[in-house]
């Protein structure tokens, strides 16, 4: 192992070290001065971002380390930067909530940083084993985060459910990985890809089984139909700050999981997995958007909304083209921003640790706080995919990729479900603007929370109007 290889993994090493430092440092911090832990965690992210940017790969450039189990390319670097951003936003939003709910503990930061590390390892995985390693690190941290409030029955139940079903999914994925290993004789994604093209597959039936298990595992993690059952319960049971976190950051990791496995490793089987993903995507978009209409709990509504958005992300992946992967990446990044913002507004409405989970809590926000209502309005229209907000640009790109790949029926289904989906996002806008407030309680939040929420909301418009920038970044990430 040369020093140069360690240099390539500098961001990961930094995060791993700092996660431990945060864990230890927190022991010496008194309850009143816990803000220090928060600051330390944020500084870690800022520093990691600087390091990643300094080491940024040029489009098309690839470097590997540790016997090709670790890959650095433009895609990994860009996605990692957005992972830092997402987590930093989650820290700022969550702090306000955790404080008022009495959950403001150092573990939250250490676990989140470990989750980030898991995401980063997945993003940079060059072998199926590295992928699995990152996945498990992320998963175990997430299970504990969901059960952060140990006195909450709902939270413990959600944590348990997440753990059992998540382990099952990991098991399925691992089984698929072992079958693929059996068929191709390698764990290395690049070797598998070569084997598929050059016909070095010993048993194609075994390979097909492996592929099916892998696709199921990925769908489980993403929460795609029919493997979505855990998602609404976990979203609802987890404390709001944690829901915000698990709705955004892990999605970036799972995107990488899907692209690394299916595109980098099993790209030669595109003809096989594209139909599997098409069915899963169609079911996710339909079920997610239809069931979300019936929800009166905001967290559950957004959970079903997530399911439908996962369907759209799969639409980009199944196209199997660089443009499709770039579209899926754009969509995932944008989704993480939208989802963070939506949960942040929910946290803003929460008082004294009581979550504003009911969608009726949004009533009259337009009068109580015109500014934050406008932010929420933009986030909702963006989620619905209405131009000029950025969500539209995400939707049309994945649809374009799918049409280009010959999936016209799926694209038409996608836009129809988008219309259905618009209904429940509009309902939030309706509650905020057309209904009278039920309470006159003032809306309070610290200045950093307000600033980040404002930037987050305005980004829906800004990234939409100037969408060329982020689209260019994503297209570049795939060497385009």
């Amino acid at each position: 192992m040369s020093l140069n290889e360690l240099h390539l993994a500098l961001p990961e090493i930094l995060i791993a070290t700092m996660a431990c430092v945060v864990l230890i440092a927190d022991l010496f911090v008194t309850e009143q001065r816990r803000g220090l832990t928060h600051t330390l965690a944020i500084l870690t992210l800022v520093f990691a971002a600087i390091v990643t940017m300094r080491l940024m790969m040029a489009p098309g450039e690839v470097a590997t380390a540790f016997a090709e189990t670790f890959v650095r390319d433009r895609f990994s670097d860009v996605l990692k930067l957005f992972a830092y951003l997402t987590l930093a936003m989650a820290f700022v939003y969550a702090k306000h909530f955790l404080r008022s709910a009495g959950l403001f503990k150092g573990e939250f930061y250490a676990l989140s940083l470990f989750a980030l590390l898991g995401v980063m390892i997945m993003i940079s995985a060059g072998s199926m084993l590295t992928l699995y390693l990152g996945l498990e690190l992320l998963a175990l941290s997430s299970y504990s985060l969901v059960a952060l409030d140990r006195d909450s029955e709902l939270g413990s139940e959600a944590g348990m459910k997440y753990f059992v079903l998540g382990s099952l999914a990991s098991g399925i994925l691992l089984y698929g990985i072992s079958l693929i290993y059996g068929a191709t004789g390698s764990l290395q994604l690049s070797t598998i890809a070569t084997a598929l093209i050059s016909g070095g597959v010993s048993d194609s039936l075994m390979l097909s089984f492996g592929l099916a298990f892998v696709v199921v595992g990925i769908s489980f993690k993403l929460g795609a139909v029919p493997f979505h059952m855990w998602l609404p319960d976990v979203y609802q049971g987890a404390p709001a700050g944690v829901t915000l976190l698990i709705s955004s950051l892990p999605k970036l990791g799972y995107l990488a999981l899907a692209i690394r496995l299916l595109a980098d490793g099993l790209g030669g089987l595109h003809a096989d997995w594209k139909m599997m993903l098409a069915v899963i995507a169609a079911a996710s978009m339909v079920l997610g958007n239809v069931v979300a209409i019936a929800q009166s709990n905001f967290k559950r509504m957004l959970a079903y909304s997530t399911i439908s958005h996962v369907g759209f992300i799969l639409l980009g992946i199944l196209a199997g083209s660089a443009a499709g992967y770039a579209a899926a990446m754009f969509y995932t990044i944008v989704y993480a921003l939208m989802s963070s913002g939506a949960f942040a507004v929910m946290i803003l409405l929460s008082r004294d640790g009581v979550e504003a989970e009911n969608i009726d809590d949004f009533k009259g926000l337009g009068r109580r706080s015109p500014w934050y209502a406008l932010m929420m309005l933009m986030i909702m229209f963006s989620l619905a995919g209405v131009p000029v907000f950025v969500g539209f640009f995400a939707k049309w790109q994945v649809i374009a990729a799918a049409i280009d790949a010959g999936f016209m029926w799926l694209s038409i289904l996608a836009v129809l479900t988008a219309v259905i989906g618009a209904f429940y996002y509009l309902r939030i806008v309706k509650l905020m603007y057309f209904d009278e407030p039920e309470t006159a309680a003032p809306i309070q939040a610290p200045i950093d929370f307000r600033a980040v929420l404002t930037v987050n909301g305005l980004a829906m418009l800004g990234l939409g109007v100037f969408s060329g920038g982020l689209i260019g970044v994503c297209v570049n990430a795939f060497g385009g």
Partner: protein
Amino acid sequence: MNAIHWPLLSLVIWLPIFVGGALLFLAEARAGLARTIALTAAIAALALTLVAVSGFDSTTAVMQFVEKTVWIEAFSIHYHLGVDGLSLPLIVLTALITVLVVIAGWGIKDRAGQYMGAFLILSGLMTGMFAALDAMLFYVFFEAMLVPMFLIIGIWGGPNRIVATVKFFLFTFFGSVFMLIGLIWLYLQSGSFALADWHAMPLSLNAQIWIFLAFLIAFAVKIPMWPVHTWLPDAHVEAPTGGSVVLAAVMLKIGGYGLVRFSLPIAPDGAAALDWLVIGLSLVAIVYIGFVALAQKDMKKLIAYSSISHMGFVTLGLFLSFAILRNTDSLDGAVLGLSGAMVQMISHGFISGAMFLAVGVLYDRVHSRDISAYGGVANTMPWFAMFAVLFFMANSGLPGTSGFVGEFMVILAAFKANFWFAFFAAMTLILGASYSLWLVKRVFYGEIANDTVAALSDLNAREWITLTILALLTLGLGIWPYPLIEMMDASVVALVDHITTTKIN
């Protein structure tokens, strides 16, 4: 020919949007300031459109005041603006109606700044849509305008506003997603989002038919054509006066404009193959919806149905060309039909806007839209009755008013296509007169119906201004339509040339 080098169209689009965006955050107590700012911005935008008119060269069909910069490089999407004889009149109409709506909304008490802001943003977005020469830019403006309209109906509308506004949003959203699929497909075929490229691109008949249908769904909802019109009466009834005026005067024209800019030139052979469908639906709208209007008890609903019926004339005029060419060798009939449709759009903008303003005048005083709540209004509001009767007469196509010009041109063209088209189209003269004049009789004439009507006061200064402007325009266009027709002529002729040349490769 074009001496103005500053980005005129961008100014007309973005000035109202930025001013409107700022007004959203003006404190609730500063309503007076909000109104003044809004009026200034609206008048400034109108003045800029008039500058464009004065610099406009009507002898050519090429795009003028063109602006083009890269927007999304990866997909070669451009911020590409320009106007020709088809879009410029609609842009002026938009700016004019915005000024009138701001004046008419002077009395709004609830969140006045946001009300004005929403209308200014809406006007900027509509202008952008009329000026867009890039399909994605067009689509973004086309969809984005749903947001302010959704809020306008939902916040300042009547008792059933929520159902109405959600219906409005979802209907239009539903229609336009098919167009999005069509746009993406065309992009994948051509590698460009430029409308000019699409106009020139050869396409197989089968592809043209699908593209035509995808666009037709989007624009038919917007126009609205029978049978996807059901959102309109609800939206009109529940919208505040300003909302109804913008909806009827400008937003309905977007569908017609879309047909002219997208459907006809991109898929001319598809349009020719399916012209029977559009003509059939137009005739149903003209005749059947005309009868429906006759049965209405609510004034706004009556005008809404009348709008659907009149928009049927627009779609009829646009699609007559193909039938005319089958009968005759001359393009004159087709030009007549298309010009008639365009004139009808502008004229309907004036008249429907004016009728909704007139209903607003009554509603502000009596708080009822029911025809039965009125009677003998002419006795207490003689000046108002004069204006209202003029507008309702114009609506029924009285010669000398703008309503006559477009209808006459379309009926004339229809005779060249098919006697029965003309026969059914001409029935509107009877039906339109029936529902318009019957309404006038029941509301304005006869004995004073009740004490509320007896206590009515005549027009105030603001109402005088708005109604006078529209009355002058209605009469002006009716007596001397030549400037408008001349402005559009080169573009209409070019369009007819284009759509009568086959694109099948």
